[in-house]
């Protein structure tokens, strides 16, 4: 019998190992879920088979109450998410670079950031939805969620810049502006991407909570409707969709972040 000999230095072997570990882990998770729900014997916690049946039905036939397709819900959530994410990028990038670069400004704004940052982004949801409506409100909650990890990562990145790079550039004739564009900016790219990675995770947590306050929102609102209608299997199906979407976005971000850092020779 051929024995599969695992070799840590073989890329294929590492890949196969990851797949096997993941599959086994998920299988064990399903079993545990099953056992737990059977033991609990509670209407509110359906067994996995019921949840997957509901998920299957949801994808094929759409929402059992309103008749909307699941893709409509997902599209709304994704759109909200992208608005919040885009806004966070547009605001946090220049601001983070500026605050990282200009010490007095950083010192002056530090108290503001430290006061606002620890507030759970979700706490803003009722206020934002009330004041900005059910479209912009959730997007702004997502914005808050992504903004702070992104901002703090960028500020951190600018401060971590090797002073020798700046010195070398100055002796090569770089002006302040050139220092910024040719050194500070590229040197912080890995930190920006890391901030995006962390921010996206937080962003997904925010969106569901923010949508709970919506009239017709995305997947989060669907979740609440199902719970209110007592369709728990459908509610859990929504949770699975949310989890998969979250995994996909952070997975893509992680991949891009690693790839770019490596390409830039800065994956230390």
């Amino acid at each position, binding site marked *: 019998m051929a024995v599969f000999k695992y070799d840590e230095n073989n890329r294929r072997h590492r890949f196969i190992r990851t797949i096997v570990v993941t599959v086994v882990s998920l299988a064990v998770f399903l079993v545990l879920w099953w056992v737990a729900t059977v033991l609990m014997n509670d209407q509110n916690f359906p067994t996995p088979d019921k949840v997957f049946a509901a998920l299957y039905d949801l994808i094929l036939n759409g929402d059992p109450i309103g008749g909307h397709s699941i893709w409509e819900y997902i599209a709304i959530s994704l759109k909200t998410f992208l608005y919040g994410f885009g806004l966070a990028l547009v605001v946090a990038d220049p601001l983070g670079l500026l605050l990282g670069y200009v010490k007095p400004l950083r010192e002056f704004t530090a108290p503001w950031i430290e006061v606002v940052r620890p507030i759970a982004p979700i706490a803003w949801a009722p206020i934002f939805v009330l004041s900005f409506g059910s479209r912009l409100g959730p997007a702004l909650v997502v914005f808050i969620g992504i903004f702070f990890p992104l901002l703090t990562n960028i500020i951190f990145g600018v401060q971590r810049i*090797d002073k*020798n*790079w700046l*010195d*070398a*550039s*100055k*002796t*090569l*004739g*770089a*002006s302040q502006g*050139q220092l910024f564009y*040719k*050194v500070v900016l*590229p*040197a912080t*790219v890995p930190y920006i991407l890391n901030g995006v990675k962390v921010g996206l995770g937080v962003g997904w947590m925010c969106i569901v909570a923010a949508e709970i306050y919506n009239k017709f929102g995305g997947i989060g609102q669907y979740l609440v409707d199902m719970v209110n209608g007592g369709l728990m299997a459908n509610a859990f199906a929504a949770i699975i969709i949310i989890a998969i979407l979250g995994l996909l976005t952070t997975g893509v971000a992680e991949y891009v972040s690693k790839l770019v850092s490596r390409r*830039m*020779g*800065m994956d230390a």
Partner: protein
Amino acid sequence: MSRSKLVVKGEKYDSSDRVRADRTDLLYSHIPEGETLVSIKDLNVTYRTDEKTTVAVDDFSFDIKKGELVSIVGPSGCGKSTILRCISGLLQPTSGEILIGGNKCTTAGSDRGMVFQDFALFPWRSVRKNVEFGLEIAGVPKEERQERSDRYLKAMGLSEFADSRIHELSGGMKQRVGIARAMIMHPAVILMDEPFGALDAQTRNILQESLVNVLKTSSRTIVFVTHSVDEALFLSDRVLVLSKRPATIHTVIDVPGERPRDRASPEFTKLRREILSYLESQNTL
């Protein structure tokens, strides 16, 4: 001297008035080789921290001649790096001044190139892009950049690594990039702070020889800080031996003989012994 006013007229590179931050040596083409190019005048540097004040350099004066390679050796912590950083303009002296061709230097600029012990290369740029950094900053057109970087990559034995990433290079190769990046700018003076200090002995020797080779075809003014007496004697026209902190000039040695030198010659050995015994007497450890 203000950075933005580096205008060179009527050189072969240009017919019009143009900022030539990439050829600052041309600013001093009127000064003959062997005449004073860089003057360090009454330099004082005091570092103040919360715990203590350190007088790193105290009334230090020295003239560097055009076209020479002068080494600075001295006990560790005597103020060598401080002096070099003052010349580069990266550090403002507490008092005193640095003159290049009679012009006072206040801030860092491309007329004083620098080679760093830990290379200070940009990892997000290829080898070629690192070498071209200063030219890019100076706004040199792409074709000229390429042509010039080709020349320096070749001179430093880096041609086949032009498109490599910095992290793919060995330490010795990295410092070749560092040297090419400084040299390509034709600064009035190149400052090297223990450039081979992070390399093993064998790589060190090879790089010393490479430097000697490059200097044969292209005359440069270089200030070279090292803790290796051997290296100083092998490379330099003059060796400046400093006392312990705050540095005073113990001796200035005119090293005899043309480069490349024989490291085993009796003269070489005698000088090395003299300097080493002095440095040992200054060692406070």
